[in-house]
Each structure stands twice: as C-alpha cells, then as structure tokens.
C-alpha cells in the first residue's frame, strides 16, 4: 500500500542535497530598488498606457548586393568571388533549372509520379550552400535541391530518387524529390512540414558538444513557419544556444495560400528577435546577398553558439507541385514579372556579362551541354529496374523483426502463386 510506503533514506538525502544546490543558485534579490523585479523580463516601468504597434508597413529592410541588372550597389558588400566561383554558381543554378524542366515534363507525361520545381529560388539554394562548409549538416523542406546540386550530388542520383529505381539511396521508398545524402551531409527530406526545424536544433546542439567547428542549416518555407514545430525549433535553439542557421524561403505562397492569410506580422524575420535570435531579411533573387548573409551567420553561429534567422524574399515562379495548377489562384502577369524581370539566374548572368565572363555563345553551348547531361541521366534512370520488393521490409527497425520477417515470407509465398498479377518484371530479383 502506498500510504505505508515510506521514502527511503536515500531519497531524503537526495532532497537535502537538492535544496542546498537550489539555494546556491538563487540570484541576489534587492527589494528596495524601485524597478521591476519580475523574473520574466528585464524592463523599466512606464506610467502611461501604450500598446506596442507591430511595424508591418515599413518592415525589416531587404538586404541586397546587386540590382536587377547585376550591378553591385555598394562595393563594400561585394563578396569579390572569383570568376571560377561565380561561373560555378551560374552553372549549378542553370543545371538545376534544366533538370527541373525535364523532370517536370516527364511527370506531365506520366513517367514519374510527382515533381516539385525550384523555379525562382535557385539563388537561395546556391548562395547559401556556397557559404557553408561541406561538413555542415543540412536539414531541408523539399525545395532545396540546389543545395545538393552545389554539393555535387550526381544527376544520376537525383533521377534515381525520382524514378525510385534500384540506384536510389533511399531504396525507392519515398515520393520523388525526397532526396538525402549521408556523404554530402544532407538529411533525407520528409513530407511533414517543419518537423525538421526542432530536429535541426537538436543536431546543432550535438554538433556544438562535438566542438568540431560545424553548424547546422535548416531550410523551410514561410508557410511551414506557421507550424508549431517552427515555434519549438526557434525557441529551443535560442534557449539552448545552438549553432544553427534558420533559412526561410519566403516565396509568397504556401500552395494557394498567400502570405496575408499565412501571417499578419512583418514576415518571418520579424519573429526572430521575439525569440532572442539575430535576424536578417535578404533579397533571395540576389545570390550574393544570400551568400553574404549566410557566410556571416555561419561565422558567428560557430563562434558564439547562437542561432541566426535569414528570411530570403523570393517568388515561387513554378506551380507548387505537379499536382497543382497555380493559375487557379494567381495571375499569369504576376508570375511573368518574376520570371522575366527579377530572376536570380538572369541577374547573375547580367553580372557575369558585365565582366565579360559569359557570352551568348557560352550560354548556348552550356544550355546544350547541360540539357544533354540531364537527358543522359534521365534515360539511364528510366531504363533501370526498380529495387527488389524485399526492400519493402528492411530498415523498419535496424534489425529484421520476426513479425515483419514473417510478413515478408508471406508475400513471397503469395507472389509465387499470383505472380502474373504483379509487375515483377520491373523489379530487381
């Protein structure tokens, strides 16, 4: 009976130890001071009633390095990257764009089941990825394929994942564009939005304890920022002092939902200070602005063990996904403006052309070459068999558990008898 159960001596001793420690930790408290003593905030008293106004008309400014014609606006902000580096930026952005076009079309033709393009957001991926160390751990949402592209993920593996063929590192289990790469420190994408945000905080905490000069970067859209997990991740990373860069792609839409139905504050960047987090808003179509902000956030996050928030303003030029027709909720004119007049790729091309680093000929040759490379990978991926159906059962747990093993054997027995009703010839044996 509980009422007869006396706490042991050990627990009394533990309680006494605890009380002592609690006393030692208490702050000095001077009740004579005529200022607020509330433990929850450090502030002065005020003798008039005034609500704090949110500043949404004139919000946090958008940091920009070059204008829409690719001119550097303030030379002190020019990262002065080498020609080779800038060409690499451009080629990665355009290669991603080419892959997007081909895979989007392939979905329209029913050759892959699903796809999500990166149109208009190529600059956010490449600019931020370039500012990171290859060892930095990346948590993404799903529209950050450019980060993998920058890190050298082979076209074959992009395609293998989308086709879910036998070369897919994910063993054909997830929908297309749910990439991941252990070698490139890119944590596998999952569909539930914002779940990666508090996970990134935990990873950053572990990385901090390893003390190996690494950071974690976590990408998410402005829609995902409405999830409870975003709140959790921001708050945890600030209170637990995690070397983490939150990178928000604010592209104006979460599927059909415009931002004025997503939030009423000054975007996402304005939330950062509320969590005690250093925050900045950048022009997401300006690869140098993205690069500079990420570079500095990375430097300080490692040095100071604190999180940074970067909100990259951009525009989702493509449909949300292949299952979405965005003309149902926004005008073609709006889309055309961003595609033709303010695009990260064209802006960087202006910059390169002005320096004589890129010509029309270069463009033509590169387009042809990149298209050829993508098509080769595409055709190769399409011909490849799907993984052995046995892989349906592995990796649920680290070990194969008996009940799942039994289910696997049951499927094999079933297939022996009914094989003509299943597409077995498409799968590896």
């Amino acid at each position, binding site marked *: *009976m*509980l*009422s007869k*159960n006396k*706490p*042991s001596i*050990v*627990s009394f001793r*533990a*309680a*006494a*130890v*605890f*009380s002592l*420690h609690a006393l030692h930790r208490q702050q000095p408290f001077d009740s004579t001071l005529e200022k607020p003593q509330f*433990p929850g905030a450090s502030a002065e008293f005020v003798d008039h009633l005034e609500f704090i106004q949110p500043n949404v008309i004139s919000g946090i400014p958008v940091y920009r390095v070059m204008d829409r014609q690719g001119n550097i606006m303030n030379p002190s902000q020019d990262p002065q990257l080498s020609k080779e580096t800038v060409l690499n930026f451009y080629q990665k952005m355009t290669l991603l764009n080419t892959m997007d076009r081909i895979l989007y079309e392939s979905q329209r033709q029913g050759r892959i089941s699903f796809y999500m393009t990166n149109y208009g957001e190529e600059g956010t991926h490449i600019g931020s990825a370039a500012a990171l160390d290859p060892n930095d*751990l990346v*948590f993404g949402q799903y529209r950050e394929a450019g980060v993998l592209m920058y890190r050298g993920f082979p076209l074959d593996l992009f395609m293998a994942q989308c086709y879910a063929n036998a070369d*897919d*590192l*994910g*063993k054909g*289990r*997830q929908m297309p564009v*749910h990439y*991941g*790469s*252990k070698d490139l420190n890119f*944590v*596998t994408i*999952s569909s539930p939005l914002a*779940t990666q945000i*508090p*996970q*990134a*905080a*935990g*990873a950053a*905490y*572990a990385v901090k*304890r*390893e003390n190996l000069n690494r950071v974690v970067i976590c990408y998410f859209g402005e829609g995902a920022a409405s999830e*409870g*997990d975003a*709140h*959790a*991740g921001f708050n*945890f990373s600030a*209170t*637990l002092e995690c070397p983490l860069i939150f990178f928000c792609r604010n592209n104006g839409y979460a599927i059909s939902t415009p931002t004025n139905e997503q939030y009423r504050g000054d975007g996402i960047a304005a939330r950062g200070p509320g969590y005690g987090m250093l925050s900045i808003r950048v022009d997401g179509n300006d690869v140098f602005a993205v690069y500079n902000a990420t570079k500095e956030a990375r430097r300080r996050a490692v040095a100071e063990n604190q999180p940074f928030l970067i909100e990259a303003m951009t525009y989702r030029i493509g449909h949300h996904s292949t299952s979405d027709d965005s003309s149902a909720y926004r005008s073609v004119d709006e889309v055309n403006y961003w595609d033709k007049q303010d695009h990260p790729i064209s802006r960087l091309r202006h910059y390169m052309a002005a320096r004589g680093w890129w010509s029309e000929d270069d463009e033509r040759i590169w387009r042809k070459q990149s298209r050829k490379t993508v098509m080769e990978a595409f055709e190769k991926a399409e011909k490849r068999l799907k993984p052995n159906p046995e892989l349906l059962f592995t*990796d*649920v*747990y*680290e070990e194969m*558990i*008996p*009940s799942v*093993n*039994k289910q696997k*054997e049951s499927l094999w027995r079933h297939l022996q008898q009914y094989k003509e009703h299943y597409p077995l010839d498409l799968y590896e044996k």
Partner: protein
Amino acid sequence: MAAVARFFSRGANSKLSITGVVTGAHSSFAASLLKLSPSCSFRSKTQRRNAAHFIYQPDPVPAQYGPTQKMNLFQSVTSALDNTLANDPTAVIFGEDVAFGGVFRCTVGLRDKYGKDRVFNTPLCEQGIVGFGIGVAVAGATAIAEIQFADYIFPAFDQIVNEAAKYRYRSGNMFDCGNLTIRAPWGCVGHGSLYHSQSPEAFFAHCPGIKIVIPRGPVQAKGLLLSCIADKNPCIFFEPKILYRAAVEQVPVEPYTVPLSQAEILQEGSDVTLVAWGTQIHVMREVANMAQDKLGVSCEVVDLQTILPWDIETVCKHEETFLWTLWLSLVLHKQDSFHSWNFKVKMGDGLVCGFEGTEIYDSVVKTGRLLISHEAPVTGGFAAEISSTVQEECFLNLEAPITRVCGYDTPFPHIFEPFYIPDKWKCFDAIKRMINY
C-alpha cells in the same frame, strides 16, 4: 519556479500543489501525488482504498550483476541514467524540469555530477522535446528525452510517428534516430484524473519503427531502460508512476540489460494464462493467488514488458513441444481431414517458425485460456492485438473465448477511479466465467 508553475497549471489537486510549494523539499507534483503523509487526516477511506489497488511484489534479488542496493523505481531509473552518462560521453538528458531532479525525482543529482550541458531543461514544448531529441540522435549522440507525463506525449505524436519511427526506413538507412529514448511517467496514480493517468501505449503500437517498453518494478526498469538506450531504434519507455516510490527492491548498482521483446513468465500455471504489463502485473499476481485459493484454478502470469515489437523471440525453442501438443489436440479432438491438411500446409510453409510470443503461445497452448488486462480503454487497446493474434495461432487450443479486462471506453475519471480500473475483483470474476465457460 518553472516546475511549480507547471504544477499549478497541470496539477489535478491544487491543495496538494500548494503543500508542495510550502514544504520546499517535496515541491514536486510527484511527491504530492505519491507521498501520502499520515498527518493528512482529511484523507477519506475512499482515497486510501483508491491508491492501493495492488500489492507490490518485489523481484528476486539479481545475483549475477554484482552488488545491489535498495532502490525504488525512480531511483533505479536514476541509476540507469547515471550509468549511461558515465559510460557514454555523447549522452544527454533533457525535458521539462529535469535539471533540478525532475518532478518525479528521476534525475536528481545528475546535472551536478555530469554538467549542465548534459542534463538540462528545455522550454515547455513536447513536440520540441521529441524533435530536438531526434536531431541529437541523427547527429550521432545519445538522446534521452523526458515527457513529463505520458498524457502530454500527444503534442509530439507527429514527431514520433511520422519522423522518429520512419527515419531509418525512409532514408534507406542513411540516417536514423536509433539513439533516441523517450521516457514518460505512465498509468494511473489514484487521483490523476484525465491527464495524469493515461496509458497511451496502444496509440504507438500501431506505428512500425518504434519500440515501446513498460517495466513492472525497479529491477526490470533499470535493465529495460538500459536496453532501450542501447537499442539502435527509437524507444518509448513508460514508467508506471504509481510505482516510483511504492516499488522497492534490491537493484544492481552496475549497468545490466534486460532484453527487449521478451515476455517473462512470472508464475507457472496450467489452467489460465494471464497477460499484463506495468502495474497491472501486480494485480495479476494477486488475482492468480485469489483464483488458486478461492477456485482452485492454476494461473500462469506473463509480463509482456515490450509492447512493440511484442515477444519477438522466434528461436522457436518450444516448437517441438508446441507441435506435439497441437498434434495431440488434433488427435484428441478427432479433427477431420480438412483440418489436418490445413495444419500440414501451414507447417510446410514454415509458419510455425514465425510465431512471435513463443512464451504466450506456449502458455496458451498449455492452459487453453487467456485473459489480458490493461488499464487503457478496451477498444483499440493492445489486448485486442494480442487476443486476435493468439486466436489466429492457437485456435485449436482455446477452450474459452479470450477475455479482455481493461479500462472502460471513457476518459480516465477523477473521483470514479476505483470503479474505472480493471482491478483484481473484475479480473477474478472474468477468470471465474472463463473456467465455467
């Protein structure tokens, strides 16, 4: 103070919470709930009877793991955590109010011993705690997360079901969060009402990829918790909070493990098999004695211990016994040729080897009757899974319908707790009906 504020917001009985604040050293909701001071004369008979729906039976002193010490369940948990932090430099413990020792005192002294970067408070946010823990584990470190009450694990349901459980599978084994263990106080406590009493294991049992473990006392708690922490899969470890102080026995000081996915037969019997886990095991033990004394019925008591994957051992060490018994039962029941044929086909396919829960099957094959009991509501409870599986595998041996004695399909009530729980009298009555079936 954060902890105290939380008692006010979540404590079922504010009078007890205030007492906790005033006395300082016992300023935990756990202490308020569990420590029934004799000086509290206002307590009625009802409350006392309520708290004593079981009699704790200590496990035998384990001899094979070196020196032992008298510990209650919360101390054995601390001991397991202590061993882990000592042996694994990457291991961290976090959750709400764990730094000062936890509201149930499971982490007392650990921060002082191992540092505040290894034992720390998080903001009050369960989805954050589990998400954070997954991240720690993905980065390769050992994460031991605490959810303050199992009742408050639901905000983290998405992180557990969609993320933790599927991490390894969806990434093709490139990434995993196998180093994550989530601990949470669990089960009824006498007066915990709706949100300090729940037994949510069945919600998680429907989720491939995680392990769910529930100990019955201090020795099992330490060994199973150490197994969860060492296991390369995300585990949820539910601690029966009514046993935190009530269950006291000799526990090895050094680390040891009790294997997961293995049920344990605590008492051999020949007429009925009783399956339960957590506190309910002690109810079952008493019921077994009552059945013996009052009905002359011999009960076999089985502690399931791991809910998922349940009783995984497939070595089929009882296979021969099983087949022999099944054959005998076929002969004795003069089964027609159709049944015999069916039986042979199953054997030929190797199905027999695939039996999980060898011990339960073995037990049910022997006794012919099965009673499963849990505190959680009956509909969709884990007893349904056990019942259905045993029925499938032991159809020819069952002499009576499998019986479930569980919580009712209602929320867990405050003042009606004595009527709600599947106590020994309800279980006893079920046995009586099964025997007379």
